């Protein structure tokens, strides 16, 4: 019983980490209609930038994370402004292919700049240590990730539901032409949304640096996870992505315990079953 509860908490921290990764992907798809294959690479860039600022240059941890978010937002801005913007009207397949090209570019660029060896940055001292949960030691860091995930969820919700910018974004997501007709500057808005999605990816990557290795190729591993979550929750559905992350996170925490051999298989099976029965996702409505 205690094991179950403890694994549940582990699952929750994994889920919140995945949520940070998937939220940006699903926002970008929901608004721009582009499935960004390179979202995982932006995540990877976030991790590398955070590692550089914090681990190499000794910048304050929080400042390093902020700087990393800004840097990746710039990368996202450039990607959208000079490439993606020009192929919104093409078939989905070309957007997938274009962003796939970016995976190859980012993966090698990272190798050029930081080398092919995995980096293991030091953990900030205030994350070390554990707290006792049901009589077992639970890392403070995981607790922090759970908090950060919930915090971002509330923040994103407030941003989209309560602010003028969020209203404009929702308006253009539901009807691009009409939103343009009533005076919303759609191209600028889209650039902003893409950069915002990139920042969320970077946040996931940057916050992960203290516990995960930073290596070229982590982007392509993470993007598949992000795909699974967004597909389960419904592509473009923010609430769905949150629940999807909870499902995948919990499943991987218990799966490792109960059926280690088929854990990976099961996750893909769930993705396939959701796609077959309800392709718009568990929470999908429009689109």
């Amino acid at each position, binding site marked *: 019983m205690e094991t179950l509860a403890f694994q549940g908490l582990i699952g929750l921290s994994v889920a919140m980490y995945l949520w940070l990764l998937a939220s940006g992907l699903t926002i970008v798809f929901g608004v721009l209609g582009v*499935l960004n294959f390179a979202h995982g690479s932006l995540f990877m860039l976030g991790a590398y930038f955070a590692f550089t600022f914090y681990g190499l240059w000794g910048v304050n941890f929080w400042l390093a994370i902020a700087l990393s978010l800004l840097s990746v937002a710039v990368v996202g801005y450039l990607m959208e402004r000079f*490439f993606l913007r*020009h*192929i919104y*009207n*093409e*078939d*989905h*397949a*070309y957007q*997938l*292919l*274009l962003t*796939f*090209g*970016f*995976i*190859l*570019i*980012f*993966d*090698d*660029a990272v*190798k*050029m700049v930081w080398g092919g060896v995995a980096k293991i940055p030091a953990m900030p001292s205030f994350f070390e240590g554990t707290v006792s949960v049901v009589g077992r030691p639970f890392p403070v860091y995981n607790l922090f990730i759970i908090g950060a995930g919930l915090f971002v969820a509330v923040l994103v919700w407030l941003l989209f539901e309560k602010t003028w910018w969020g209203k404009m974004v929702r308006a253009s997501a539901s009807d691009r032409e009409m939103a343009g007709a009533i005076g919303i500057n759609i191209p600028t808005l889209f650039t902003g949304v893409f950069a915002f999605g990139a920042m969320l990816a970077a946040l996931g990557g940057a916050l992960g640096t203290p516990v995960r290795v930073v290596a070229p190729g982590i982007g*392509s591993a993470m993007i*598949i996870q992000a*795909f*699974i979550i967004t*597909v389960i929750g419904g*592509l473009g559905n923010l609430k769905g992505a949150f629940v999807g992350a909870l499902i995948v996170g919990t499943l991987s925490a218990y799966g490792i315990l109960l059926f280690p*051999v*088929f854990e*990976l*298989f099961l996750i*893909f*099976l769930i*993705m*396939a079953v959701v*796609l*077959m029965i309800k*392709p718009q996702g568990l929470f999908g409505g429009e689109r």
Partner: protein
Amino acid sequence: MKTKLAILLLIIFLAVLPAFAGKYLLYVTIHILLLSIFSLGFNLLFGYTGLLSFGQAGFYAVGAYGCAKILLVYPSLLAGILGGVTLAGVASLLLGVLCIRHTRIYFSMLTLSFGMMIFSLAWKWRDVTGGDDGLVGIPRAPLEVPGIFKINMAAMESYYYVVLGLSLLAIYLFQRIVRSPLGLTLQGIRDSETRAACVGVSVRKYRLLSFTIAGLYAGLAGALLPPLESTVTPPVAHWSHSAEPVLATLLGGIYTFAGPIVGSALFYLLKDIIVRFTEYWLICLGVIVVVLVMGFRGGVVSIFLKEGSRR
């Protein structure tokens, strides 16, 4: 006439290649041929039927693991290849029924998830697939029909001829398929599903047929791999391997018959040339992909533009 002459010259060139080429060149040529078969099948789905699959490596792996398993038990090249292809065909038929229910992005995601399911089996189901070690010590068994003939395959040249022969056969059959009413029907479905359905075409049946043929081609490419490498490992099933035919086809040209073949050759040539100068060959490939996709702007065959405006 000119094209026919060029094709004839190319075939003659490939046929006499072992006379002057070293082992490495033959090895690379075999890989180009395998990627060509793999990409042709992929392009039947993508270029001709309009479905972008990211799970073709799964069927490639079924072919490869199937062939390897058979060769380990019963060392006969013919049995291994036929067995591998049949298994891949069955797998793609069964999964095809489930996959072709969707199109566009949902099809891509569905094929991705099935492909990765096959990958996770290859990676974790140690008893059958050898886990992350893969299957090793696969013999390059002789090509034989018991009682009729038996050709030893130990030399690279002999195996090269088997691959070349099967590739030419596969390419010829592919040409017959796309030029047949079947090929036209598939293009009709790609251009407009509604229109095709209205004239009485069973869209799902044809999509399934296209999916199965693509799976068979992937399986053939896969089945030819283990005798060459004498091992099969899980990465052949990974989605990043599914991306190879995508890239090759994109390089060579999507809506053309020869595109995937030209693209496969280009893929290996580029890799060979770029790797001489820098280890970062993927970044060059990435730039090429981006340029190609961006260059399509306005130039993409009209159907995609039409679909874009309808959305």
